């Protein structure tokens, strides 16, 4: 393959492995390439084995790549852990002073990283720059692209530490020179110049933050948890700048119920958490459904169950997201497929919450939160953000935030209470918020009549249940249908969800290249499922494969429950995502 390479770096956390990788990704993207990263974090706070994989290509990159073309190992353990992921005939780079690799089907480039950093540059912490310089020399990303990124990263510390920048540049130079002069290139990986493109480079959580801001999120409450904390931290910083407020809660129950209070106040409100915190929100999410309060809840899934593996990937909260909370509680569940989705679907999530007055659960996952992609800048365009319409005040005030004027002497009230939960064809009732004269009501988790007054009559409970679920029917009709990918005349269909779309599509591409007739469908909205597309797709193929990174086949269960589908379940549950090779294999086995 031309103009494409997948580089994996394995080392010890804290050695600059990850930050070096990030710099390389940005440099490649600025140079005009598409990039896609995958990384693992150690369980320890400091130290511990970590890994960074970067795929660079002149064509859009859909997955992390099955194997590394180039593996850089900073110690023996990294070699042992990662050599299995190196392509046959690939490139191994290491420092002989660290360890001596076993022999194998790979080309080796020994490079004295440590000596260069320590003796020549005389600053050991430039070791990651030495690595970058070697990569530049060996595979092509021009040094200028890298130095530009390094310069902007270090621009802040330039004053306090002027020599740091110099030393970094020196490291890049010396190392590049070393490899070009001392090594004979024996591999075929070489990136050439490509056209520049207008792209941004960011990870899933960063895109989620941009989406929340674009949706004019007014209020965020949250509690730190891996891998959702970045979202909280990003919004803590950004929200005040757009007039929103932020609150770090004492736990997830407080976070979610604070969101309910803010939402009742008319604010577009959200929280972000991961499995354990999401579990604690169950009761309050049920309340949002019952009282018909909009709320956006991000569950950044990590490998479970229980505390599980906080830094590992899994798609195993779907069933729980579909059924969280006792009783029959309608909610919308969406799952982004990539970094671009993290932005657009986030805006959609807010809009759905506001339009249908219910909780919207946004299921991202650990791999996507940390996955850096280069995305066309045009994806991050201004998007419309809606707010539920509040019933007009009788006395003319209709802004959300009332200034208190016009109320001093008294307010005007309808003789009968506001019909907050009036029956409508769509199931969506008129709503209100404090500051709106004549439309006050009491939000309650008790079953209630149209005014919100507690009411236990069988006929009323029945009608209210229908009304609440009617909103999902309305949503299913209004929401866009997912696009089919692949062959129109496919015999094998794959249905996936969440962060695996690109990988599934790459698997489909490979299978098609081998002559299989295959197609894929990847709904973003999992509740309510887009029935029409789902049924059409299922009926159009002979065999359906449902690949999921979980044990129990959670989407497959849902498809069984809804359509009676008996799919081939392909499950991976080791805490790491699928590769396109896994998908290809599943297609071949299903045939």
């Amino acid at each position: 393959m031309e103009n494409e390479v997948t580089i994996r770096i394995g080392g010890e956390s804290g050695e600059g492995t990850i930050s070096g990788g990030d710099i390389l990704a940005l440099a490649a993207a600025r140079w005009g390439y598409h990039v896609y990263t995958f990384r693992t974090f150690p369980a320890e706070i400091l130290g511990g084995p970590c890994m960074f994989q970067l795929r660079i290509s002149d064509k859009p990159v859909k997955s992390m790549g099955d194997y590394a073309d180039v593996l850089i190992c900073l110690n023996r353990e990294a070699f042992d852990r990662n050599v299995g992921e190196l392509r046959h005939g690939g490139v191994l780079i290491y420092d002989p002073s660290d360890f001596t690799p076993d022999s194998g089907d790979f080309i080796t480039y020994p490079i004295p990283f440590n000596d260069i950093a320590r003796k020549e540059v005389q600053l050991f912490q430039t070791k990651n720059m030495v690595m970058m310089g070697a990569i530049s020399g060996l595979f092509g990303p021009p040094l200028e692209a890298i130095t530009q990124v390094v310069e902007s990263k270090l621009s802040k510390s330039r004053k306090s530490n002027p020599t740091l920048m110099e030393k970094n540049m020196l490291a890049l130079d010396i190392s590049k020179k070393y490899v070009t002069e001392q090594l004979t290139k024996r591999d075929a990986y070489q990136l050439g110049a490509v056209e520049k493109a207008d792209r941004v480079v960011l990870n899933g959580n960063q895109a989620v933050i941009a989406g929340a801001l674009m949706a004019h999120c007014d209020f965020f409450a949250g509690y730190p948890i891996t891998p959702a904390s970045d979202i909280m931290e990003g919004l803590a910083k950004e929200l005040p700048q757009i007039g929103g407020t932020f609150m770090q809660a004492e736990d997830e129950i407080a976070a979610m119920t604070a969101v309910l209070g803010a939402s009742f106040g008319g604010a577009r409100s959200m929280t972000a958490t991961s499995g354990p915190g999401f579990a604690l929100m169950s009761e309050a999410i049920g309340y949002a459904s019952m009282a018909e309060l909009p709320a956006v809840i991000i569950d950044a899934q990590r490998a479970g169950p229980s505390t599980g593996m906080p830094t590992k990937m899994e798609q195993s909260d779907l069933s729980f997201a579909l059924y969280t909370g006792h009783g029959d509680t309608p909610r919308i569940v969406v799952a982004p497929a990539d970094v671009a989705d993290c932005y657009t679907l986030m805006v959609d999530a807010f809009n759905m919450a506001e339009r249908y007055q219910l909780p919207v659960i946004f299921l991202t996952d650990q791999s996507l939160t940390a996955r850096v992609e280069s995305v066309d800048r045009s994806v991050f365009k201004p998007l419309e953000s809606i707010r539920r319409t509040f019933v007009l005040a009788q006395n003319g005030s209709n802004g959300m935030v009332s200034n208190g004027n016009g109320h001093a002497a008294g307010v005007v009230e309808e003789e009968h209470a506001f019909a907050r939960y009036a029956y409508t064809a769509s199931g969506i009732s008129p709503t209100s918020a404090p500051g709106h004269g004549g439309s006050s009501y009491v939000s309650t988790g008790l079953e209630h009549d149209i005014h919100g007054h507690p009411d236990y009559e069988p006929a009323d409970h029945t009608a209210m249940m229908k009304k609440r679920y009617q909103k999902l029917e309305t949503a299913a009709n209004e929401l866009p249908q997912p696009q089919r990918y692949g062959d129109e005349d496919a015999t094998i269909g794959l249905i996936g969800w969440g962060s695996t779309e690109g990988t599934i599509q790459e698997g489909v591409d490979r299978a098609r290249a081998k002559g299989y007739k295959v197609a894929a469908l990847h709904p973003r909205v999992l509740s309510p499922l887009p029935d029409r597309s789902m049924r059409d797709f299922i009926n159009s193929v002979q065999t359906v494969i449902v690949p999921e990174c979980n044990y129990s086949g959670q989407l497959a269960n849902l498809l069984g429950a809804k359509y009676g589908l008996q799919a081939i379940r392909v499950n991976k549950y080791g805490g790491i995502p699928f590769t396109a090779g896994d998908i290809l294999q599943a297609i071949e086995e299903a045939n």
Partner: protein
Amino acid sequence: MSQTTLTLAPKDYKSEVKPTWCPGCGDFGVLNAIYNSLSVLKLPPDETVVVSGIGCSSRLPHFVQTFGFHSLHGRALPVAQGMKMARPDLTVLAVGGDGDMFSIGAGHLIHAALRNIDITVVVMDNETYGLTKGQTSPTSPTGHVTKSTPYGLLASQFNPIATALSLNVSFVARGFSSRPKELAALIEQGIQHKGFSFIHVLSPCPTFYNTMDTWKTTVTPMPVEHDTRNRFKAMELSMETAKPFVGLFYRDERTTMDEAAHKMTQQSSAFDINKYMARYK
């Protein structure tokens, strides 16, 4: 649709929902005190929210003609705090029972104290779980025999005033449902106080644990000489559980979190995605 104009008399804060409480329940007195304090302060019903949890006492918002939020058991405080952070223009009251606020909601109380968000909390303490029919609550006295403690309660009795003072809550008071006028005045002061106001109300449950007669004899007015800026003295007074003092224990004005958070937003501007994304170029 016919309309009437409210004069903001106490009765104008009465909603069309009839209280479901038992005859003689202390919560009636608290409800009246709330009507009165809202009326005295002429609080606009549309800019006032009464938040509660779950319990007999937590039914209260339904009976008040303002906005209301009858939330989940124990969650009145975070709901009220989220609301006030998002809508600092509103007057937010949080009401509920001893079970709601001190048992399942105990953790939230600590953090509401630390945040000092400008809300007013009225706890209707009947030393029992009324709605679930009389089990012990954190404020039940040691030895108390109920269906859940057939051999007598083994835990110590929680002293809400003492703990609130240890948390440096900025307004700490106690009232008694059978002294509705004093109580209304305390609630009024609490609402006017800028910061987290904690009002502990003795409000008997004649159906499951009739403390009315005892409290009528033991409840003691706050010593007139008490300096409400003296937190240590207040703590000492709070230890007098045999003759519970009613009145204001402590008050101390300081920055509230809602205020500080909104000061931060003063430099805010409309979000511009194009500008924002420049950082990821």
